[in-house]
């Protein structure tokens, strides 16, 4: 099962390697990872989506993360109310007659065209897991040439 964890860490070199190394050394899988500075430039915020087969693994991940000296706090979102979002950029096949079709899609689903040329459009979408999933299913009908995603960001509400 996938779980979302956020980790506040000291913004020092090598911290990302410590966190990533902890996962690889113990055989845990990272599904996505997003890192950036917070309001306090000395602190970074990581949103990590992990695969954990049971509660015990998740508990170990939490405890092991807490053991790292540079980790300030760990928040497991599993039992919390939270908002999560992901940004996706998709390069899809495009022709001028698709314009109306895509616009119809974007009335129902998240996303917009941010660039297009004769045969290609780039779609930008921000949404939660299921919104992004639905959008990608619809877009796959056009033929997705390339896809980049930020990984999940999450914040408690």
């Amino acid at each position, binding site marked *: 099962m996938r779980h979302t964890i956020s980790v506040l*860490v*000291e913004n020092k*070199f*090598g911290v990302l*390697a*410590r966190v990533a*190394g*902890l996962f690889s*050394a113990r055989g845990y899988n990272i599904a996505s990872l997003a890192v950036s500075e917070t309001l306090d430039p000395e602190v970074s915020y990581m949103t990590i989506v992990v695969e954990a087969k049971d509660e*015990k693994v998740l*508990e*170990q991940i939490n*405890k*092991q993360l*807490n*053991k790292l*000296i*540079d*980790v*300030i706090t760990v928040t497991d979102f599993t039992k919390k109310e939270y908002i999560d979002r992901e940004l996706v950029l998709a390069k899809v096949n495009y022709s001028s007659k698709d314009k109306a079709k895509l616009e119809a899609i974007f009335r129902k689903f998240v996303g917009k065209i941010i660039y297009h040329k004769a045969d290609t459009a780039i779609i930008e979408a921000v949404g939660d897991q299921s919104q992004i999933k639905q959008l990608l299913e619809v877009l796959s009908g056009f033929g997705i040439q390339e896809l980049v995603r930020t990984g999940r960001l999450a914040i408690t509400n």
Partner: protein
Amino acid sequence: MNLTGSQILLECLKREGVEVVFGYPGGQILPTFDALYDFDGFKFILTRHEQGAAHAADGYARVTGKVGVCLATSGPGATNLVTGIANAFMDSIPMVAITGQVPTSLIGNDAFQEADITGITRPITKHNYLVKDIKDLARIVREAFYIASSGRPGPVLIDLPKDVQVAQTEFIWPEEPKLRSYNPRYDGHPGQIKRAAKLIMESKKPIIYVGGGIITSGASAELLKLAENICAPVTWTLMGIGGFPSLHKQSLGMLGMHGTAYANHSIMDADLIIAIGARFDDRVTGRLDMFAPGAKVIHIDIDPSSISKNVKVHIPIVGDAKQVIAELLEGIKHKPAIADWLEHVEALKKKYPMCYKNKDKILPQYVIQQIDELTSGEAIICTEVGQNQMWAAQWYNYTKPRTFISSGGLGTMGFGFPAAIGAKLGAPEKIVFNVAGDGSIQMNIQELATCVENKINVKVAILNNGYLGMVRQWQELFYKRRYSYTPITSPDFVKLAESYGAVGIRVTKKEDVKSALQRAIDTENTVFIDFLIEEEENVFPMVPAGEAINNILGGLA
């Protein structure tokens, strides 16, 4: 007044109370060795290999409870420390390892003798630092000592580029380190302690199971009081040896793969396990789903990640063993002895005593017993890894903490001899033995020069059976006696010791064991005693890997 980075480092080590540093010079640590040349703030011991320096620092830390310090150059000097650092990490030993590094301008350029040692040691240190700015150096050294010695201790590495060693700045001794992200918890949760006390009072078949945490926190006196107040038998892990007096009537000795049969049977029959500073390692639990099926578990440990890692815990208590036991004792004045349970344990002791069959040749168990007798259980016994280690664990009656010095978690052959050097420097008044095999001793035998040069008086009892004995034992029992690369030749250990300026004694007959040991003890020099022992003697009892711990081979009278 301005000081160089090297001078600041040495001044900080001195102010941290460092008495001795073990190490080896080299190109990128030259400025620090130059500063050492006329520095008299602590003793420096030149080992003959950086691995020896790391293990010696480790042995010193285990005996004294203080932080062990080792110093090496960049690249190969640093990578040679790696085994020693990993060893300290697995056994939660406080250590600060300092390495030279190529100048900051060259880092990442594959410079001569460059290795990314902070990257390499990330998973085997509690924390590590690359010092990029001399202004951070004093603070980093203070933090390193604080982190290494607090909470669950462990090794911390400081990588010090050459340009930082020669740079100059004003020396300011920093305040006590405060880290917002690191606050070890020492006192137990009062509610949990109350619940634990209740469970203990209700239990009919309690057993206390302790590990290295008892030694680290100095909780032996509290443990003894707890055990006596609740009339519970006590068993321990390899790392817990010495935490409880082995001749006490409630003692069950070591449990697990080579533990006593009665300890293993007792814990399987218990209805309550009070685990303190132990981590339910696979060598202890055997097959996990069959381990102590009827027992509830109270687990006291300073490291939350050790709790509920392997077994289901009913009452977790995060805290320091000494403090938590003291808190627990406030809620438990006296629990009456439960006769049925204690009689059952006594019967197990009678039914499955520790024993071995006498043979014509010298038996290793007998050698250890003679060392015990001659030193009244008061010596410091270091060990290598393998059969020698298990015999030393089983047949010596340890009476005090910090007297059994052994590589528990990592199982590092070559640990014992350099560790004995550190142990002797940490406790010069004690007799220090290294119990070795003919295989292990050859892994760091170069440290004989360190002993002789510095007049470090350690006794090395080589249990010489011509085999890598523990692997041979597994081959005998589980690989149809196919002795693949376990027969091993050795140099003439007597001549070898003599060539270094130490003393060598060879013992081939049982009746000479005691007098040879006595002669070694009386000799004011390092002594190698080469005991030619029964070649295919096995360590029993033994629980095969992956079996339930009451499925025991051998050791029956």
